[in-house]
Every structure is written in structure tokens, then in C-alpha cells.
């Protein structure tokens, strides 16, 4: 039982990080129907920005988080304007290949400038541990969960209560109709990229703190897993991505904890394939009918 609860704690903290990344995927997919492969690499760059800010500027956790989020948001907008906007009307495969290209570009440009080696993240949070009966909870895990919850509440507020959030929902429902209603579609798409990238940047800093090590290829796997989370929750659906992230985090920690940790990546992908076959629209997604 203790082991179960311990895995639950670890799973929730890992799952929160996946949920933050998955939100970016799901929002971008919802609005322009693109799997933004470069999203995982924005998360990697977020981790490096956090690393630079805490190591060289000696700032604390909260400033690092905010700086990383702002810079990643700007990066997200730039990527959207440079690589995806010229392809707004071309085939989806073309945009998907561009996204893969963008992902490789970010990875290897980073590798070119900072080297391929692993860097250790400075300790910005205390290492103190809490014990509840036999379960250990790390200080970092509490921070991760609190940060994630705060960011998600802010996100829900933006999407559901503000004017730009309304515009985002309108564009993702029907782009042409939204444009006819006087919504600036391009600005709305840029804003979506900015929010998604900011969340990825926050996730990058949190992962750096949690695992203590960052490298230029760290974004690939978590990016794909976060995508699985988004698909599980129902792609384009924001609460779905949160639930999906937690489920994937739990799945991964339980497979490592009770089974063989070597199989945890395979388990996530097997899970994806099963979802796609049984319920392709995901947990909370809407079924779309195919029109001829």
C-alpha cells in the first residue's frame, strides 16, 4: 500500500509536467489542426533558459519561471510566423513535415551552441523531504504541483472568461466564420502559440528542477508522451489534456515501479495505439463526422 501511494505521488508530479506540455499541443491542434512537433523542443529551450537564469543571473525559482515563460512565448510566436504561417493553406502533411523540421532545427541549433553534453541544473529549491507515514514527498514535487495548478487556473480563466479566450474558442470552432465576425485570426493563432509555448517553458524549468539534468534532446520523448496525453484526453480539449497528462504520468511511474522501467516508453506508446483504435476522439473529445 505504501509503495502504491508513493508511486501515486511520483506519478502526479510527473503527470503535472506532462499535462503542462500537453496543453500546448492540444491548444495548437485545436486551432490549426497541426501536431506541433517543435513543442517538445520549446520545452527543452525553456529548461535551458531556466538554467541560464538561475546559474548566471543567480535568480530564484519564480523569476526563472516567469522569464522562461515570456521568452518561450516569444519563441513560439516567431516559429509560428516563420514556419507555419506561410503554410496555412497547404496540405496537412506538408505542415507536419515542417514541424518535424522545426523540431530538428531547434534541437541541433541548441546542440551547436551549448554542446551535446548533459548539464546539471542548480539547486534553486530546498531539498527538504516530508514524510506522511511511510510516503516521502519532495519539496520539488509540491512546487511542481502547485505551479501546475496555478497555471491551469490562469489558463482556464483566460480561455473561458476573457475576450481573447473567446476569440480562441471561436477560431478553433470555425475559422472562416470567426473571421467574418471580425476576429483577427492570425493574431489569435499567434496568441495560442504564445500561451502554449509559455506553458512548455514553465514545464521545462520544472523538469530541470525535478530531474537536475538537462540536454538538447530532452524534449523529444516528453514531447511525444505529452502528445499521447493530449490524444488520450481528446485532442483540442483543454481539461482533457490535464487529465491525459496525469494519466500518462501515473501509467509511466506504475510501469517503472511495478514492472520493468525499460518498458515504460513502450507502455505509453502501446497505450496510445490502444486509445486510437478504441476511441480515436479521446476521453473528452467530440466525435467528428467525415464529410465528402
Amino acid at each position, binding site marked *: 500500500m505504501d509503495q502504491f501511494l508513493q508511486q501515486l505521488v511520483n506519478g502526479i508530479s510527473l503527470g503535472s509536467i506532462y499535462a503542462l506540455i500537453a496543453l500546448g499541443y492540444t491548444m495548437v491542434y485545436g486551432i490549426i489542426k*497541426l*501536431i506541433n512537433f517543435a513543442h517538445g523542443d520549446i520545452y527543452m529551450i525553456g529548461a535551458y533558459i531556466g538554467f541560464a537564469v538561475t546559474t548566471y543571473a543567480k535568480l530564484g525559482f519564480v523569476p526563472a519561471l516567469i522569464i522562461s515563460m515570456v521568452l518561450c512565448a516569444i519563441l513560439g510566436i516567431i516559429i509560428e510566423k516563420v*514556419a507555419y504561417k*506561410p*503554410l496555412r493553406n*497547404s*496540405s*496537412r*502533411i*506538408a*505542415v*507536419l*513535415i*515542417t514541424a*518535424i*523540421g*522545426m*523540431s*530538428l*532545427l531547434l*534541437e*541541433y*541549433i541548441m*546542440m*551547436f551552441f551549448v554542446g*551535446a553534453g548533459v548539464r546539471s541544473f542548480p539547486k534553486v529549491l530546498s531539498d527538504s523531504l516530508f514524510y506522511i507515514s511511510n510516503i516521502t514527498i519532495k519539496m520539488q514535487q509540491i512546487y511542481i504541483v502547485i505551479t501546475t495548478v496555478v497555471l491551469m487556473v490562469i489558463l482556464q480563466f483566460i480561455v473561458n472568461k476573457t475576450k481573447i479566450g473567446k476569440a480562441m474558442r471561436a477560431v478553433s470552432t470555425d475559422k472562416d466564420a470567426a473571421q467574418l465576425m471580425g476576429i483577427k485570426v492570425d493574431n489569435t493563432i499567434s496568441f495560442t502559440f504564445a500561451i502554449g509555448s509559455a506553458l512548455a517553458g514553465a514545464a521545462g524549468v520544472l523538469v530541470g528542477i525535478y530531474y537536475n539534468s538537462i540536454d538538447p534532446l530532452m524534449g*523529444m520523448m516528453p514531447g*511525444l508522451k505529452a*502528445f*499521447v496525453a493530449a*490524444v488520450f484526453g481528446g485532442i483540442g480539449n483543454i481539461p482533457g489534456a490535464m487529465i491525459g497528462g496525469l494519466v500518462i504520468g501515473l501509467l509511466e511511474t506504475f510501469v517503472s515501479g511495478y514492472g*520493468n522501467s*525499460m*518498458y515504460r*516508453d*513502450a507502455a505509453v*506508446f*502501446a497505450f*496510445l*495505439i490502444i486509445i*486510437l*483504435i478504441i476511441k*480515436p476522439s479521446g476521453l473528452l473529445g467530440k466525435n467528428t463526422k*467525415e464529410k*465528402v
Partner: protein
Amino acid sequence: MKVLNKKNIITLVLILVFYSVIQGLISARVINSFYEITIATICINIILAVSLNLVTGFTGQFSLGHAGFMSIGAYAGALTVMNTNSTMGFLAGVLIGAIAAAFVGIIIGIPTLRLKGDYLAIATLGMAEIIRVVFLNMNDITNGAAGLNGIPRYANWLWLFVFTAVTLILINNFIKSSLGRACISIREDEIAAESMGINTTKYKVMAFSIGAFFAGIAGALYSSYFYFIKPDLFGFMKSIDILVIVVFGGMGSITGSIIAAIVLAVVTTFLQSFAALRMIFYALLLIIIMIFRPQGLLGTKEITDLFKFKKKSEKIE
């Protein structure tokens, strides 16, 4: 329809001439062993790119897991060669690798090919990752992450050339057959194809498993030529490498894939000492092609179409 018509004889002569010229250059040591490796890479990449082109370019099913099938062929081929250690064993290994890959292709294809577009891409990517993880964990057979070392080298220019030529001829004939036409109709419009009575699932799985078959051949050749394989060689990046060739050459163009495989291999050889730059170059190439020429070098045309067009216009004059 005679088998030995004029066109086939010309093709055969061209194939033999091409083989002998390169063989002559290798024997005369004009092509040293360093460039020989480039040639081997080109042959293997052509097989991989053309087989992926059948799936992605001609049938329109976007697959990101081609390296997974290559790894099955590589392991099956390597294990057979290591246990038999003869040319016959090598050929049997290639065949076993190809059949094993095609078999896995059918098993994977039946459930996943119901998905479309980006979902299929992610599902195939996931499948390739699962295959990689399985090879990583079969320590007794595959030696885990360390990989298999000291695979006897039976793949030489002769066999590489034979398999490349056979692959090209078979896939070209498949595309020109009624089966291939059915595959192309699925790419053009799946719903329309279905309403014309084409069993789309059947043809998709067929194209997918044929693609896997040839990827298996490429894998087996790779393992025998380069002595050494490990699961990480066949990860996501390898699938992307193959995809870059197909996209660069043009999705739906066999000659395009051949040209792209040659161009990219030559570029890679020159960028050998700057491995990091090579990947930046690849990434930029992908983005720029997609923005400025999304159909690739040749689009869905073949190099031979250009000559045909010329002849026709001459007649009109």
C-alpha cells in the same frame, strides 16, 4: 506482351552497363573504400526511400516508423548470417529479414491503417519505438543496448546493386499494375476510391507490408555491410532520415527518391566532419522545401516523363 520487348532490353542493358562501370571503377581503385561506403549507403537509402515512397508517396499513408521495419530486417538478417556464415546464409538472412518485416508490417498495419493523416504518423512512430524497446530488452538474442558486433560481411557491391535493382524493378512494376493504381487512387481520394469498389484497407495493408518487406531487405544489407547494429541506430531519427529523402525527391516519384538519396549521401559525406551542422542542414532543408516547393524536387513526376514529353512535342512540330 512479350517479356523481352525493346524497352525491357534497353533497361537490362543499362543496368548491366551501370553495374560494370562502377565495378570497374572499384576494381581500378578509382573509387576507394571511403567512397565505397558512400555507395553502399546510397544503395541502402534508395531501397529504404523507394519502399517508404510506396507507402507515403503513392498510397498516401504517412508513416514515421520505417526504421522499425528496417531494424527487424537488420536483426533477423544479422542473426542468420552470424549462425550460418556463408553467402547462402546471407541471402537466406536477407529473405528472412524481409519476410519477418513484412509479417510485422501486416500485423501492425491492420489495426493502425484505419487511422488517417497525423494520427497514423504518431501511431507508426509509436510502433517503431515499441519495436526498438523490445530489441533493447531481448538481451539473450539481441545483446540489448550494446548491439550485435562482428556480423560477417557478405554484402558487397554486387549484392547491394542486385537488391537495389530488383527493388526498383519490383516496386515500379507494382505501381504500374492494377494493384498500384488502386493504391494511387487511395492517395488521391480515399472516399472516392472506396465508392468505386476499392477495398481501401486491403490495399493500404498491402502497400504497407510491401514497404516493410523492402525496408527489411535494406536492414539486412545494412547489418551485413556495416558489421554492427544496435537498437538506437533505428530510432526516430532514422525514420526522419528516410522521410527527408522521400520528401526531398518528391512524394510519388521513384526517380526523385533515387536522385535525392544520391544527393543527400554525397552532401552527408562532405559534411562528415561537422555532424552537428549536417542535422541543421537537414532541418533547414525540410522547412525550406515545404515552404517553397512542397511537392519536392520532382513532385509526382518521373525523370523519364521529361524525355517522353520532349518526344511528343517534336512529333507535333
